[in-house]
């Protein structure tokens, strides 16, 4: 038996350590540890509630738009203006969030995941006229190959031509994700950390020149997704077909849905959304989400037990760094007691089973081209495919939505800051289901809580000893070469972990400050 520790896991967001116990070449046990802790909810306490979306965006620089969105939804709810947002406000929030989905998925496939499958050294003796490949080949010729080395060796399966094409696309994708952020900035002000989404709508004046610029940009990105990104995912999946049978973790998939299509009801989970919410099991049966079924366990997390193992609104979390048996700053959220995956795969499944026309068509096309069936999407390749499918459908939707903006109508409504209130904002970001909950007292944030996507996916064991989704996905897999653990890193990265999001210190009742101790 051997223990393989990967610390740090790179090409993710944030700080993650993965430890696996290997017996006879197979993973017997896996542990996923979040090793950074910033105490976000503590810093939000006693601040002006209207600062929430600007501060919580700083939870993550890769996915700030969903935090701004969820915060704004929670504040709209707390301020009693959910149902009063203007069409322009609702649409433009979707454009800002959607632009970041496109950026995030392109970044993930090419710049976070691809180096596990693509051998960039194939561009070494390139003699052609593609400027991007020429710069790669000159770079390789100079011999100082960082950051592309060191790397895992021994399992790159694409042909020389395929590797060269993917390498050229890696460079092109750097440009395209930058353009997705430029597109976002049209309505969001700047990115990272947009300056546009606020409670009441968005601040931007939605003028006709912005509409035209966004439309042009989203069509360019849509063409990239359709002609380059999605085909590259299929090409890689075709060469690594065994990864359709690897990487299934949980049997339950959760999404809150994303992109409001109508003015809000007070319950974000009942709102009509472009990507519908839902919880889907391994047998592809779907049910509505019941937020009361979420429990966060702290059994293997560095927090005291007596405050945990409860619904987010009932928890009291007291950090305990030296708790025996604990191994992560992440807590372990579970839905209805079940280990639950969130993210693009969950969204695509929920949409597919709900009969969403474009998702069904895109998924069926991908399955046909790869000769596979729907259950095989519950895998490493399935997750990469789900992201690309989502990106394709979303690009087309963004192009439609921007044309629905009416420049002479407002995108923002004013409100009165209440002295006391509560609100919840639940929506899916690129990595999955995100919840923000706020309680306001004396016009200040009395408590603020976040339950974020990667906490679900990278969670440690719960009170029943059930490993989290990534831990489950790693258990039982064959690792051919412990020194080049391709299988492990490909599985972990397929989840697109974002650790900055996933670690937090919650104190719903405001007492943990006094009890905090570092042992």
């Amino acid at each position: 038996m051997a223990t393989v520790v990967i610390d740090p896991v790179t090409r993710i967001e944030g700080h993650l350590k993965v430890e696996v116990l290997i017996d006879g070449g197979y993973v017997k046990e896996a542990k996923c540890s979040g090793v950074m802790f910033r105490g976000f909810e503590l810093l939000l306490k006693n601040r002006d509630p209207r600062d929430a979306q600007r501060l919580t965006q700083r939870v993550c620089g890769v996915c700030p738009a969903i935090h701004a969105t969820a915060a704004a939804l929670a504040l709209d709810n707390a301020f009693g203006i959910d149902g009063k947002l203007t069409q322009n406000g609702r649409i433009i929030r979707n454009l800002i969030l959607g632009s970041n989905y496109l950026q995030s998925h392109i970044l993930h496939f090419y710049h976070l995941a691809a180096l596990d499958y693509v051998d960039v050294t194939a561009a070494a003796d390139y003699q052609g006229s593609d400027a991007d490949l020429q710069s790669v080949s000159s770079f390789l010729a100079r011999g100082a190959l960082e950051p592309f080395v060191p790397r895992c060796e021994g399992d790159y399966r694409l042909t020389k031509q395929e590797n060269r094409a993917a390498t050229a696309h890696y460079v092109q994708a750097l440009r395209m994700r930058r353009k997705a952020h430029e597109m976002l900035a049209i309505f969001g002000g700047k990115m990272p950390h947009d300056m546009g989404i606020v409670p009441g709508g968005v601040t931007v004046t939605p003028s006709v020149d912005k509409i035209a610029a966004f439309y042009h940009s989203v069509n360019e990105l849509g063409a990239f997704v359709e002609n380059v990104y999605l085909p590259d995912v299929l090409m890689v999946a075709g060469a690594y077909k065994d990864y359709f049978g690897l990487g299934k973790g949980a049997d339950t998939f959760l999404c809150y849905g994303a992109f409001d299509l109508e003015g809000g009801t007070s319950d974000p989970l009942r709102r009509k959304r472009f990507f519908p919410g839902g919880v889907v099991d391994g047998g592809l049966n779907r049910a509505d989400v019941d937020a009361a079924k979420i429990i966060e366990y702290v059994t293997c997390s560095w927090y005291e037990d007596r405050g945990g193992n409860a619904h987010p609104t009932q928890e009291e979390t007291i950090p305990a760094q030296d708790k025996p048996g604990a191994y992560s700053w992440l807590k372990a959220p579970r839905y209805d007691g079940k280990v639950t995956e969130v993210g693009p795969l969950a969204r695509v499944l929920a949409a597919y089973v709900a009969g969403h026309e474009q998702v069904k068509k895109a998924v069926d096309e991908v399955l046909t081209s790869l000769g596979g069936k729907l259950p095989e999407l519950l895998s490493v390749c399935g997750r990469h495919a789900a992201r690309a499918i989502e990106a394709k459908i979303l690009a087309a939707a963004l192009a439609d939505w921007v044309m629905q903006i009416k420049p002479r109508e407002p995108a923002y409504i004013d409100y009165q800051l209440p002295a006391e209130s509560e609100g919840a904002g639940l929506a899916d970001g690129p990595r999955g289901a995100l919840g923000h909950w706020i309680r306001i007292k004396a016009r200040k944030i009395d408590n603020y809580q976040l339950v974020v996507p990667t906490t679900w996916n990278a969670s440690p064991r719960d009170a029943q000893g059930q490993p989290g989704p990534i831990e489950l996905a790693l258990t039982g897999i064959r690792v051919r070469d412990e020194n080049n653990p391709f299988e492990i890193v490909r599985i972990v990265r397929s989840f697109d972990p974002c650790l900055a999001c996933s670690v937090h210190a919650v104190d719903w009742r405001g007492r943990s400050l006094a009890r905090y101790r570092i042992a």
Partner: protein
Amino acid sequence: MSKTVREVPVVWIQAASDSGCTVSVINSAKPEIHSVLLQEIVPGRHINLRFQATIMAGQGEPVIRILDAAAESNEGYILVVEGSIPLEEKCCTLGQRDGKEVGAAERVRELAHKAAAVIALGTCACFGGIFASRPNYSRSVGVRELLKRERIETPLLNVPGCPPHPDWFLGTVAHVMLFGLPAPDEVDELGRLKLFYGRLIHENCPRRAHFDAGRFAASLSEPYCLYLLGCRGPQTSADCPTRKWNNGTNWCIENNHPCIGCCEPEFPDGTSPFFVNTLGMHAPALRLDEQGMLRPTNTDSAFLR
């Protein structure tokens, strides 16, 4: 391009960060980030990016060896630090040594000693930023504070912003590569290049005429001066009004959103609440009313509250 290319080693580590600074830097349009990675960023010099956790190919022990090798070498690398540094070291660890987690603070200490220069990237790395805001649970500090405590005298340049504009960072790197460390009169007392941070946003704001004439926005979507809605332009040094953001697409105030002072050492505690005016700065077009609130003197102003 030159025939001989000198490799300039750069080690970039992330402490308590949200990776926003990394994302902002890869948004660079001039130069494009692939040029920075693959080509000579200035003639005869290529950045040899030894360590950068978001994009590097390797993981685990092999990449930690890179950090250890750098800390023992005499190569004179540039150390880039992103994120604030928790003095409670278990709050942020980076890799292992002898089976135990090593705190990010320890990594910064070791690597700063042997670096030719340190660049603190982002407000968190410069001044502590968001994660050092009250109550500062993890006892996070900026790089400057850490180097002072440890009496490490490696030259330090600060590139603040939340996140910083990619031009501010790459421009600072280009300066070091072309001309070495900046002269004392090229940086301000906070270690920032005056080229980027030398003037207040308020001095160059396109809405300054509205401020002077007393046309103040009463509501967030209005195209007038945002001062009475909390704008920190008068408090913040940066060239956002002229450089703008995301390749000249837009920027905060142009988007009808008040500046939140994200480049400043006091961000966020000293620049918030973001939507309430606490600067109390007087101006020709403003007067104090009976409740001590700033009001426009121009009674035709749209400001109603």
